[in-house]
């Protein structure tokens, strides 16, 4: 049996590798996507005072520290006796502005830096040319806009959290600083950076680009890594619309049947189990009622657009309607549509940021509330990559005694394994020669989920990806690093 390995070589960060097992006829026998991520963090935080959680959890991930910060903050709010709606309106709005800035910059990074090289140059392009530098050379305007959009989101984070790294925006019961008039005007007046109106305009331009791309490449995009799955995310408590900061949990199966019916955050534990496999440190969450085999869900942009009833901002809603038409209103299980869905969310975030920047509440000093102390707190938000759950228990001395995190990449664990299986079975199986383009298609399928494989740490000299091919005798016959 041959073993094909795609192995990101990392030091201590999230560690993922793909192994595809072939038999002697080169047919795929099995395939796995293994991940090691966030190891030990849940124990690491035990014993710390609860108010440290929103700060410490930022160390989890260099890509979305704000998401962990906010999910932890929501959980810690409950420990000080406050549910999300109990916070002052200014505090809620400032947190949302921070969150939309985070999602906006994260989606921009993913599209311009990680996804666009595949889309612009094709999966079979020379790897040395399939990168953001080539995007910069061939599509200079697109690359510059990508950088400025990313920067805009980062500047929103800075304005709301104080600084981009280790900013402390959310504190138990609210936020620690308001947005200043000067900061607010910085995003509105176009004097120093392109304004929020430019962000909306550019977001629409990029959606037009992806729609055009789908029109030209629909055959590939409609078939590549198309497999049935459940879809999970938060929806607005009142109207079931797209919700990223605070809502109820909803899941639909591959055919649109409701499998989780707008469940309040506090009840999540009644509905979810986490399975384990010997070959991966990452758990496999699933809905208890359906079981491990079929109860897993995708999370992230595609899932969120699938499950929501609508989007509250007009431009993003127009785009959602067009997106849904692609599948005649039915659930979309096509992995490559994740990019399109991500860009719709980017537009939604831009529209929401504009609305919040023009809201006087973000300039208010009414930032904190107090409640009656509890011993447990649950915070769930939609991080850029999907549903993120933080759950803490504390003792009477204010120390954290238990921590449970279910992060987006964990929810997507089975979905990414299915994506790898799809490519293995449809692209690699039975071929006499394994090409670079075939291997890249494995990555393309995984990359659509924007998994956080490079969390928390980084050092000079890292070699993040290694591709190894073994023959049926277990001998290494092919190896690539990039």
């Amino acid at each position, binding site marked *: 049996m041959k073993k094909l390995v795609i192995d990101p070589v990392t030091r201590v960060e999230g560690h993922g590798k793909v192994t595809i097992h072939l038999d002697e006829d080169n047919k795929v026998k099995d395939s796995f996507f293994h991940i090691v991520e966030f190891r030990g963090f849940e124990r690491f935080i035990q014993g710390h005072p609860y108010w440290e959680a929103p700060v410490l959890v930022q160390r989890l991930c260099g890509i979305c520290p704000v998401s962990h910060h906010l999910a932890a903050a929501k959980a810690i709010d409950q420990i000080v006796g406050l549910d999300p709606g109990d916070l002052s309106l200014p505090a809620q709005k400032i947190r949302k502005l921070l969150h939309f800035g985070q999602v906006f910059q994260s989606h921009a990074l993913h599209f311009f830096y990680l996804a666009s090289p595949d889309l612009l140059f094709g999966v079979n392009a020379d790897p040395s040319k399939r990168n953001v530098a080539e995007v910069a050379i061939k599509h200079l305007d697109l690359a510059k806009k990508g950088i400025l959009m990313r920067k805009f989101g980062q500047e929103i984070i800075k304005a709301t959290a104080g600084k981009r790294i280790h900013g402390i925006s959310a504190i138990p019961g609210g936020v620690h600083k308001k947005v200043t008039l000067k900061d607010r005007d910085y995003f509105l007046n176009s004097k120093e950076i392109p304004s929020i109106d430019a962000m909306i305009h550019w977001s629409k331009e990029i959606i037009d680009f992806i729609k055009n791309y789908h029109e030209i490449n629909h055959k590939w995009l409609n078939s590549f890594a198309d497999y049935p799955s459940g879809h999970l995310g938060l929806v607005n408590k009142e109207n079931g619309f797209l919700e990223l900061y605070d809502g109820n949990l909803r899941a639909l199966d591959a055919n649109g049947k409701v499998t989780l019916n707008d469940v309040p955050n506090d009840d999540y534990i009644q509905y979810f189990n986490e399975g384990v496999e010997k070959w991966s440190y990452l758990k496999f969450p699933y809905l208890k009622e359906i079981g491990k085999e079929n109860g897993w869900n995708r999370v992230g942009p595609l899932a969120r657009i699938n499950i929501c009833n609508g989007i509250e901002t007009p431009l993003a809603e127009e785009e959602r309607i067009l997106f849904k038409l692609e599948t005649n209103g039915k659930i979309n299980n096509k992995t490559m549509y994740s990019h399109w869905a991500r860009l719709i969310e980017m537009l939604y975030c831009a529209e929401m940021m504009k609305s919040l920047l023009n809201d006087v509440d973000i300039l208010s000093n009414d930032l904190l509330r107090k409640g009656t102390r509890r011993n447990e707190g649950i915070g769930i938000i939609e991080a850029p990559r999907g549903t993120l759950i933080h759950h803490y228990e504390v003792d009477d001395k204010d120390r954290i005694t238990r921590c449970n995190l279910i992060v987006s990449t964990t929810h997507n664990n089975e979905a990414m394994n299915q994506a790898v299986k799809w490519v293995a079975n449809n692209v690699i199986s039975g071929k006499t020669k394994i090409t670079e383009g075939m291997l890249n298609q494995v990555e393309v399928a995984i990359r659509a989920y924007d998994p956080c494989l490079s969390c928390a740490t980084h*050092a000079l000299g890292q*070699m993040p990806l290694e591709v190894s091919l073994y023959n049926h005798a277990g001998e290494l016959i092919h190896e690539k690093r990039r």
Partner: protein
Amino acid sequence: MKKEGKYKTIVFGIGNTGRQDDGLGWLFLDFLKTQNPHMDLEYRYQLQIEDAELILNYETVIFIDATKEDTGDGFYFKTCKPSEAYSFSTHALKPETILHLTNTLYYYNPKAFILGIQGYQWELEIGISKKAKININKAKDYFKKNVIVDCILTN
């Protein structure tokens, strides 16, 4: 698209103090802050594409990070040149790649250096190892004698 009236130097510290010796880059920035509170210091978990735009405003860029490499003296301080070294399977960017992007997008090449400080332990824990502490102290001494006195860090 060179901007006029550039500042002199920006220093990026890359890493994570929650991962033992991976925090060397940030700790070095903390040290620089004590030497001159007006320096432009940027703490990063990872370098990101927008940093290619940020460095447009500076004549000199210094990247500071922990390294696994055997550096001999516990650290190295060397020139950093633009390089088309990419991995789009990760969100992280190398200093050389940032410079390459700045060059490609904005036709600008600042002077650039890398300070790599050798680390040994990378677990989820706050605090650097004893050996890394020796190395960062050597790097601090080197900077005091050879870099800060050159005033390249003073904007």
